[in-house]
């Protein structure tokens, strides 16, 4: 089979996510490009959880509602997913816990998992190895692939796990063949991990975070790497403290980042204004999830675009980038770090639950080379002035301790030295300085891949962030062009105008109810003809988009 889609479902907290990761790695080892969609409720144990792992020859970043194989860990995995089944969907299930009464699917593999676990001497938590062993047999995947993965990632009690997997393998039968592909094996990362790599690549030394779905994997990644990379990982009392601590590090010349979602970012906004006024660099990973307020904590949304564009009182420049998969998350996280420090302003990596927690095949070769770019540093001589006027608005940085000098930063309107002033000319100068920096950033933007175009045609889909993958795939099938905005502030007007050349009908695709990107285009004198909006917390599937498009394009 050229591609395969596997759904694994069971109770939350009992290893379904681990099963998804293991299947993703298994397919990756065969040379496939993978995408893992992870759906779970906001609770620790109980409730229904499922993953859909899709593997394809080409890079993908979208899921299909219709799956080829279901791994049924419990009855809900069947009952709640009847709409995911095709006529020929293979169902591999635990016959001790699952009944298939009334299903028309004829291809099934049933295993008495409890008996197998008992025979193997394994614990109930090892049931996934049994079903994944059976999956290997069903797709005629050499058991050695699974064996290597278990030894590498599940080394604890590996012998038991291998025995369980082997028994699952032996009790199943071949149904189809997933051939190994002759292309490089790529690592499988979620978006948080990819952003983490990009931030490290761009020289990040400190990460400050308060736990929050969906960015906690970033905090956990860095916490684990603290000794190896000599990082500071700090977990303060609130997101207010997170932002202020980030600015303290920035004042000292320490490249840092913070990560949060809408609720936490609401608290950070107070400190964000300080970053604007004091021209302190800060990188904010802002991962959208369903809101307002607590909303649906583990579900996705693209509802905070305008919040991020306008957060904070007063007027100050910012960079907002919106990567749409792991490759872009890596690259743009690094760009955000470099530009925050070059221009001394806040830089946002605006992502969502989908990008953060779903897994992708990561290919750093697919994006431009990232470097750790140095900021503009003060070389002397004379008295250091933190806010010295310059042609491009960028004042050279210096950090304490500096013999004979004082580095003064201020939340008030301030003079060049950094002391409070309410003089009207100075006040205007401070704002003009920000505008000047923004203008230079916008000019630099012209040389970046800020707007990407895929395919061609007079009808185009417009997207940002996580809808990139689904748009590209469906547009490819229907013969449409795709325009993806990767930079949202400063608004890339020129690049967008070029991308729109020859487009007669523009259809935006967003996970919100009000068409936030469409609004942004209208503000910048562009026009969107049709909007496809989804706001139930679930990412847009290939089938969702195709159905909506056929309706819109009638």
């Amino acid at each position: 089979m050229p591609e395969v889609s596997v759904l694994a479902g069971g109770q939350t907290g009992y290893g379904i996510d681990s099963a998804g990761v293991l299947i993703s790695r298994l397919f990756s080892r065969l040379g496939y490009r993978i995408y893992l969609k992870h759906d779970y409720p906001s609770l620790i144990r109980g409730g229904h959880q499922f993953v859909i792992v899709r593997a394809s020859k080409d890079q993908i970043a979208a899921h299909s509602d219709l799956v080829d194989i279901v791994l049924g860990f419990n009855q809900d995995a069947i009952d709640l997913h009847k709409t995911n089944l095709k006529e020929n969907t293979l169902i591999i299930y635990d016959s001790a816990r699952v009944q298939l009464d009334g299903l028309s699917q004829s291809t099934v593999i049933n295993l008495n998992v409890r008996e197998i676990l008992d025979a193997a001497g394994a614990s109930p938590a090892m049931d996934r190895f049994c079903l994944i062993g059976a999956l290997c047999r069903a797709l005629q995947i050499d058991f050695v692939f699974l064996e290597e993965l278990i030894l590498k990632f599940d080394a604890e009690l590996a012998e038991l796990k291998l025995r369980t997997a082997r028994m699952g393998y032996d009790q199943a039968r071949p149904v189809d063949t997933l051939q190994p592909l002759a292309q490089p094996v790529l690592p499988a990362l979620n978006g948080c991990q990819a952003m983490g790599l990009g931030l490290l690549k761009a020289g990040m030394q400190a990460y400050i975070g308060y736990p929050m779905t969906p960015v906690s994997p970033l905090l956990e990644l860095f916490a684990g790497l603290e000794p190896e990379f000599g990082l500071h990982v700090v977990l303060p009392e609130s997101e207010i403290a997170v932002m202020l601590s980030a600015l303290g590090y920035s004042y000292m010349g320490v490249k840092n980042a913070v990560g949060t979602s809408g609720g936490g970012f609401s608290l950070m906004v107070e400190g964000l204004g300080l970053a604007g006024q004091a021209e302190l660099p800060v990188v904010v990973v802002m991962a959208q999830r369903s809101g307002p307020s607590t909303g649906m904590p583990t579900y996705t949304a693209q509802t905070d675009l305008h919040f991020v564009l306008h957060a904070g009182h007063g007027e100050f420049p910012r960079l907002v980038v919106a990567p749409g998969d792991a490759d872009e998350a890596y690259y743009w996280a690094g760009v955000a770090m470099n530009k925050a420090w070059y221009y001394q302003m806040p830089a946002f990596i605006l992502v969502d639950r989908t990008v953060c927690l779903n897994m992708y095949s990561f290919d750093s070769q697919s994006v431009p080379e990232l470097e750790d770019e140095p900021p503009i540093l003060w070389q002397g001589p004379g008295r250091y002035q933190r806010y010295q006027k310059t042609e491009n608005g960028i004042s050279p940085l210096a950090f304490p301790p500096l013999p004979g000098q004082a580095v003064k930063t201020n939340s008030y309107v301030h003079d060049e030295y950094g002391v409070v002033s309410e003089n009207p000319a100075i006040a205007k100068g401070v704002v003009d300085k920000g505008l000047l920096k923004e203008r230079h950033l916008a000019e630099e933007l012209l040389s970046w891949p800020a707007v990407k175009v895929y395919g061609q045609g007079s009808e185009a889909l417009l997207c940002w962030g996580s809808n990139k993958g689904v748009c590209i795939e469906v547009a490819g099938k229907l013969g449409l062009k795709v325009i993806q905005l990767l930079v949202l502030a400063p608004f890339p007007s020129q690049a967008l105008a070029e991308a729109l050349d020859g487009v007669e009908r523009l259809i935006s695709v967003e996970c919100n109810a009000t068409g936030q990107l469409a609004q942004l285009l209208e503000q910048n004198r562009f026009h969107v003809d049709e909007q496809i909006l989804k706001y139930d917390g679930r990412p847009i599937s290939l089938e969702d988009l195709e159905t909506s498009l056929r309706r819109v394009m009638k």
Partner: protein
Amino acid sequence: MNGLRTTAPIAWCPGCGNFEILNSVMAVLEELQSEGFPLEKFILVSGIGNHGKIVDYLHVNSFNSIHGRTLPAAEAIKLANPDNKVICFVGDGDSYAEGFEHLIFAAKRNIDLTVVVHNNRTYGLATGQFTPTTQQSYRGSTMPYGAKERNFNPLELLLYSGATFVARGYPVKREHFRKLLKDAITHRGFSFIDVLQVCVTFNNLYEAYNESVEEVEVYDPSDFQEALRVISSWDYSTSGGSIAIGKFFETDRTSFEQLFPRLEPAGPERELKLQRLLDRFV
């Protein structure tokens, strides 16, 4: 510029209690400098309120933060380079109301900072409202019929939270205050001085303090119960009675910044580490 002073004009009322704090800070910094501690290794962090302006008047590294948010910025500044001495100037509205959480957590961590609270027991810059330490008899512009809630005693809270140096000072007692300030700055760990700073315009307590302030020396500064007894002897509900000043508690405990690695800029070896890291995802 004259020594430590910048040319910034001072924006405090004549007779403001902040002047003596400024003079004392200059005296102590000069003293520490003459003892060999380089001036450029002091970093002053302040909040917003009349107290916060103090950093503008000193030609010393400074970070004028926002209302209530001095501590989290100061903590990161200390973590970034523990060789520096970080001194925080905060107000009572600023850090006992808006940002109290940060004070409690900084004490809990015992991070090596000095916090000087300019406690004038009113919102000065906001023109005369109640703070958590305003005396109950105060008739503020927003509470003309009196207090609706009781005070708390910040020293008790800080002591319980884990501060390793807890003191109260009255800058009118100049030598006493300067010694406290110097002790606090040289203390390793979280040091905290509640300063009876008088707002001449909105809560002029000079007369009351001159009558009621008493220098107290505890027998053993590491005795928690003794410290608690002295600290609890005045609860901020009044401006009179007997108000103890002095160093009430001092002890030694591992400070937060000692638990972090020294930060080095990412070198070329990071590239290799990143490659190795990526292998863990295959």
